[in-house]
């Protein structure tokens, strides 16, 4: 009998060791993107930076009966006769949608680089430098404002590049390889869309080119992804080499425009100087306010204090100033005391359900940040819409320009008021997530979430109330965590809606509705 028990135990152990513990991503097994509407007129949609869809010339493609094109087709046939399982995997992966997959790549990079630098031995902190990205601390530190801007640039550039792509598709109208030659298999599904230039290659080119600005350490890895996508496009029969070459070149040219804009958008100066940091303190003191203090040890300079001066895509600097809410209650007021004691009470009585909400929305160090979280929410809803790549790009651009401008507005407000966190006013307030290293008023999560919910609710009206509820929950999570006063969140959500409305206004006139 003993032996039986033992064998039973041993058997269970072997079972646990052998059982499939594979954990797969929610978007791992998606079917190929099958647009319900090809948006054939998207070449006339309003771009963001491009003045015209044909700002960058694309050469007339070779005719489908030319020897050059026949060679292109033969290359595809060659791939299709010797498809490796890796290539089949790449075809399945990329066919779910280029905008989706590049968005996921971006989210991964944001999470990977979202680490605050470790202190120097003297207690000061090094600053990541784009001039020397491979040395510690690695460039960038993709904190929420950095991430918001990175998502915005890449999404906006993808959108402009696809508007140009759609313009040329309509102009040249060269059919897809599987349409020209029926012996070529359409392994990623068929569309009625012209294939020159390849929209997938446009996305690969524009995304890879943006990396020199956004994640310079990753240019090599991203180049590899570009090659995988382009190989998948050809091997699946969706595009020829000439479709790919033209697409990638167009994408890279459009990206250069965005990179040029980014180099002059003030983000490079957002770290500020010790003199800037000191001035926030003296300004708050002059107004008889307790100035914000870093609660990290050693004290860390505030996160990107001049990010409020970055040039937004939707809001100009005057709009940013006009978005500013009134001040929080004075740090010496009874109102502030009662807000602080409310924060203490909340943390002392946190329920497991509240802790779960805190964790779900925390999006702190090592994560893709709140803008990344809203990209995930959007992407997983967009997957169900069967949109064309250009409509995907347009809607992601609207979302991410909103998030960037929400970051600019939020950081402007935070450093304008330089208001302390609850824990600074009452150190007995312990927190359920890491305490962010920037002022309290208004809540960044509330602004990112409220702004995202506003534009996403416009894009998918049937989900508007769900987005609103999510934004409210994200805002509440910061109160439950003990890192915000209730007021930071309620005001943050209000300002966020105003930011989101700038995006709604653009959406109404960009020609896509």
């Amino acid at each position: 009998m003993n032996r039986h028990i033992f064998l039973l135990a041993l058997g269970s152990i072997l079972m646990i060791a052998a059982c499939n513990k594979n954990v797969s991503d929610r978007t791992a097994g998606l079917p190929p993107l099958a647009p319900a509407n090809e948006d054939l007129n998207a070449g006339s949609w309003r771009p963001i930076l491009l003045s015209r869809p044909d700002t960058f010339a694309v050469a007339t493609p070779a005719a489908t009966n030319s020897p050059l094109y026949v060679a292109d087709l033969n290359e595809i046939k060659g791939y299709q006769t010797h498809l490796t399982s890796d290539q089949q995997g790449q075809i399945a992966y990329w066919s779910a949608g280029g905008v989706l997959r590049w968005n996921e790549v971006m989210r991964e990079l944001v999470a990977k680089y979202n680490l605050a630098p470790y202190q120097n031995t003297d207690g000061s902190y090094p600053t990541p430098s784009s001039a020397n990205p491979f040395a510690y601390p690695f460039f960038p530190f993709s904190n929420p404002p950095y991430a918001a801007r990175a998502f915005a640039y890449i999404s906006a550039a993808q959108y402009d590049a696809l508007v140009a792509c759609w313009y040329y598709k309509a102009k040249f109208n060269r059919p897809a390889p599987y349409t020209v030659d029926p012996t070529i298999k359409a392994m990623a599904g068929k569309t009625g869309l012209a294939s020159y230039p390849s929209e997938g290659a446009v996305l690969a080119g524009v995304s890879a080119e943006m990396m020199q600005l956004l994640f310079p350490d990753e240019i090599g890895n991203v180049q590899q992804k570009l090659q995988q996508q382009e190989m998948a496009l050809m091997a699946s029969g969706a595009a020829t080499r000439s479709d790919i070459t033209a697409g990638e070149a167009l994408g890279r040219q459009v990206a250069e425009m965005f990179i040029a804009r980014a180099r002059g958008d003030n983000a490079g100066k957002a770290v500020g100087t010790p003199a800037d940091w000191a001035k926030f303190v003296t300004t708050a003191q002059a107004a008889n306010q307790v100035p914000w203090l870093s609660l990290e040890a050693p004290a860390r300079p505030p996160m990107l204090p001049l990010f409020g001066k970055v040039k937004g895509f939707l809001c100009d600097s005057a709009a940013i100033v006009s978005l500013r809410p009134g001040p929080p209650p004075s740090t010496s007021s009874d109102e502030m005391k009662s807000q602080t004691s409310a924060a203490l009470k909340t943390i002392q009585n946190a329920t497991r359900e509240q802790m779960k909400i805190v964790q779900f929305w925390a999006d702190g160090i090592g994560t893709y940040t709140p803008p990344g979280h809203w990209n995930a929410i959007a992407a997983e809803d967009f997957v169900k819409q069967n949109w064309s790549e250009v409509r995907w790009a347009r809607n992601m651009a609207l979302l991410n320009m909103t998030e960037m401008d929400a970051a600019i507005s939020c950081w402007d407000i935070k450093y304008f008021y330089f208001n302390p966190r609850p824990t600074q006013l009452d150190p007995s307030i312990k927190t359920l997530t890491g305490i962010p290293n920037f002022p309290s008023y208004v809540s960044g999560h509330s602004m990112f979430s409220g702004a995202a919910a506003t534009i996403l609710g416009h894009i998918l009206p049937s989900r508007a109330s769900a987005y609103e509820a999510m934004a409210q929950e994200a805002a509440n999570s910061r109160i439950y965590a003990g890192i915000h006063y209730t007021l930071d969140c309620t005001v943050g959500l209000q300002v966020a809606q105003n930011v989101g409305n700038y995006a709604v206004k653009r959406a109404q006139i960009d020609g896509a509705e």
Partner: protein
Amino acid sequence: MLNSKKVAFSVALALLVAAPAVLKAQTDEDGIMMDKKNLCIGATYMHGSWDHYWEGTFKRNNQNLGTVSTQSVMVMGTYGITRKLNFIAGAPYVWTHATAGTLHGQHGVQDLSAWLKWDALDLNVGKGVLSIYFLGGGSLPLTNYIADFLPLSIGLQSKTLSGRLLVDYQAGNFFATASGTYTGRSNIIIDRNSYYTTSLHLTDKVDMPDMASYNVRAGYRSNWLIAEAVFTQAFTVGGFDIRKNDMPFPSNKMNSTMAGIDFKYTLPKKWNALSIVGGGMYTLAGRNVGQSTSWDLGAFYVLDFSHKRSKAHTSASEKK
């Protein structure tokens, strides 16, 4: 893991293996068995703390944590199904605390652990007795505590199954015990639906690496006193390193090498159903764990349902 090694029996077994503080009376790591229909029950208090930890191989302190401590009270019992087959079970209440920074400590009931311990073979070897034990065990979270709040989580939420081979040799009052353990760990579900390890995962499920460990203990063992030195090494089979200044994560690689001492004192004469246990452990080396120093103290009582004068025995005392 960054919370202390002896968070509890199960987590200690699953993660850092050496659990000298718990199950001290008749444990899953010694060569002692309860007699048939004897129940040994008791409780142990443990305190472990660290102010240095390893991020991967980088050893550091953290002024935003100060000293991280874990306390636990473990209630447990061992029952003699037969003289050769014992059942061991226990569960702890755990508190965590950081002396600096703003992170909120956690507390709660952690995991239920249970073992079947089979004294499979006793052989006269030289002047002593060599015994071979097979153990099979498992653990199960009893509450929905947060696993993904390291280093202040009270546990990791994984269900585990373990197999252990234990060899014990006793000659006179000298003994030595060696054991090797493999622990399979189930996936866990965390409160967020994406996380980064060495790549981004778009899911709330976390693949937990299995664990392996060995444990060596030797010293003096008589009916009234056990005094032993303990050395143990545990490692995850897989897992990944914490990056510089990143947060720890449940599926990190968590390796540790620890050494310590333990004792068990059984009261004399009519009090001999009662024993006091205690010990201390120090982490010599580690990876993605805190360099914990811990001590523990407990008391155990033997209830005899067989109505015979009986108590714990070792194979050596039997054979003599």
